[in-house]
């Protein structure tokens, strides 16, 4: 008698033999799409229910995920996929609404900032219409609302507020009595969801919300923290926002005796895509991360990623070394590369690149 594992192994073998695909669903996907254009074998589907502007630069996408989508825990994120001009792009966003909200209405919200040179976030704001379908993954991530009742300190910067909106909405909806203090930093722009914060703190005396404009009150400091939240060192700390905020804040908390294990953080948002610097006068060094081999290598400009990997003795497969054979294909997780053959810059997200004709522009992470 065969064990379940050997059964699934045989099933996989037969599927591959009959369809040349990893799953039967993937094989029939093109046919199903004739009837249901948005259907995909992997991932779930979601219908766009609304696109609501939160500010000039920020909008919330209201989605109704299909039944296949399970549920999220407050603080988790999803990868979504949109197709622009025939190209599929993947992006990651925190769910900014609460699981309770999804339970009741079947809806989730993603709050998205239009990146200055970002192709996808700009396109979605214009190109997505109510009734369109996009595909999304199940929720992922460990930066989640804790189960315990201990007092919390939430510190957010800019769009890093989104998981905390989910935290607070969830706590409010479940009538929690937890003592929560949210400090929300912004630089000379109005805080997101300003009205909601007001309503929440009025309705729930156990929520304290401080909005700080760094332009006026300065960047985070010990003094400021003491003033805003005197018992900050008695709380479990959750930090979400840009790199600078997180590191400063973390150091500060540790300095004041908060245990490392009581600090949770999530680096937020892609690093802003500055306009790609021109290759020729780029003299700032960039770091290439080979994720699977766990190696960091400093890139010299003009050096192809293939040469770089070989210099680091990683020996990726290669062939023609001139951009023809595609043997050197490798999945790029993050960062921008410049293609010396087509003289173009890549997207920032996940995609396959040819190592032999790619040069790193800024920091790049490769799945190798």
């Amino acid at each position: 008698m065969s064990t379940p594992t050997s059964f699934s192994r045989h099933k996989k073998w037969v599927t591959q033999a009959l369809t040349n695909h990893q799953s039967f669903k993937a094989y029939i996907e093109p046919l199903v799409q004739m009837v249901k254009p948005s259907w995909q074998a992997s991932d779930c589907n979601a219908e766009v229910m609304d696109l609501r502007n939160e500010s000039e630069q920020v909008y919330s996408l209201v989605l109704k995920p299909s039944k296949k989508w399970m549920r999220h825990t407050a603080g988790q994120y999803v990868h979504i996929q949109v197709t622009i001009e025939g190209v599929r792009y993947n992006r990651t966003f925190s769910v900014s609404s609460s699981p309770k909200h999804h339970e009741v209405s079947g809806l989730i919200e993603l709050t998205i900032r239009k990146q200055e040179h970002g192709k996808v976030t700009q396109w979605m704001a214009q190109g997505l219409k109510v009734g369109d379908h996009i595909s999304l993954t199940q929720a992922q991530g460990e930066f989640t609302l804790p189960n315990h009742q201990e007092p919390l300190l939430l510190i957010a910067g800019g769009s890093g507020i989104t998981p905390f909106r989910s935290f607070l909405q969830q706590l409010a909806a479940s009538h929690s009595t937890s003592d929560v203090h949210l400090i929300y930093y912004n630089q000379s722009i109005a805080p997101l969801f300003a009205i909601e914060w007001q309503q929440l703190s009025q309705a729930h005396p156990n929520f304290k919300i401080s909005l700080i404009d760094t332009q006026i009150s300065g960047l985070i400091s010990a003094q400021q923290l003491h003033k805003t939240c005197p018992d900050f060192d008695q709380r479990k700390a959750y930090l979400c926002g840009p790199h600078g905020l997180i590191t400063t804040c973390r150091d500060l908390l540790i300095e004041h005796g908060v245990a490392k294990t009581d600090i949770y953080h999530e680096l937020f948002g892609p690093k802003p895509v500055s306009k790609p610097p021109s290759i020729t006068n780029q003299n700032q060094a960039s770091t290439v991360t080979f994720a699977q081999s766990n190696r960091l290598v400093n890139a010299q400009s003009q050096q192809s990623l293939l040469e770089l990997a070989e210099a680091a003795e990683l020996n990726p497969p290669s062939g023609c070394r001139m951009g023809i054979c595609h043997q050197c294909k490798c999945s790029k997780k993050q960062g921008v590369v410049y293609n010396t053959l087509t003289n173009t810059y890549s997207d920032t997200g996940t995609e396959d690149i040819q190592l032999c004709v790619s040069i790193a522009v800024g920091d790049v992470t490769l799945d190798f």
Partner: protein
Amino acid sequence: MKHKESIDFTALADEFDQINASVKSQLGSQDADYIRRIIKIHRLAEISGRIILMLCFFSLWFLLPGMLLLALAKILDNMEIGHNVMHGQYDWMNDPNINSRNFEWDIASDSGSWKRVHNHEHHTYTNIIGKDRDYGYGLLRMSNDLPWRKKNRWQFFTYLNLSLLFEWGIAYHELAAERVFVGKKKKDRTSSLSDSELKRMFFSKAGKQLFKDYVFFPLLAGPMFLYVLAANVGANLIRNLWTSTIIFCGHFTENVQTFTEAECKGESKGEWYYRQMLGSSNLTGPKWFHIMTGHLSCQIEHHLFPDIPAFRYYELAPKVEAIAAKYGIPYNSGSFFKQYGTVLQRIWTYSWPDKAAHKINEDHQQTEN
């Protein structure tokens, strides 16, 4: 034809690089929609073919359309979809199912081995005798670069067999290229895979193909086992004949040239383009014909731009031909029957020692004039 020395290879490379970059910048929904449409047609043909074959229970006449549909599906899968997807022509779509890294096709050889040998060796070292093993597949003497041997007398017969069993020939050929079964290792092999891994992949893929066409579906037909088996054999044979015929028309027509390793040492990008043009030949024909050949009917364009979506070759062809004329480079194009005629002639000519030598002398005189 101009002498090689008088061609401005830098300018030539610029012109082709420009075409390459301009097409790449246009890639978009049109290309994505096209390949998805072809994939849909493939699925419809394959599924309906298999179903119709099962109907032979009612009348044996169903075998014929069933077999033809299945052959059509296999040809589309191998030529317009598989070959092109595995060249990375659609990788920019970022769709894992239409991607050179993941694609597996309906043919005996596994995609990984094929990509290593074909994309790298054949496309980089096109028609360099000794480096491009696709030149004659190590079985046929297709030019006087190889000395005549007794076995060449039978090569017309060998060719017919190769055509009929093409998928197996190719699958074996790929492993032979790595000298997995016999002979000495190549010194400069690029593959980091061991022989046993290569063998395992060969047998695993071959096993799957045999299981599908010669065990699973015939068994599904129950009492009609032998009929469905025969129809599946038929579909594979049709595909083999078609693909081998088209591929031979791409590199072995009358005027296609060969090169020596020494000639190509340290060649520039422009010279590489030049070699691709001299080493390939095109076929003219209606649109459906181009699709069925996977646009290998535009072999010249394919060799110049192997990773541009193939259905665009057709519109690129006039531009390439104009550039060829401008630089005095031959552009070898003709109807299927004309080109195929010269292929058969070539196989025949080089079957014999004397005629071949005679022919070369003539060729040499012509180039000198």
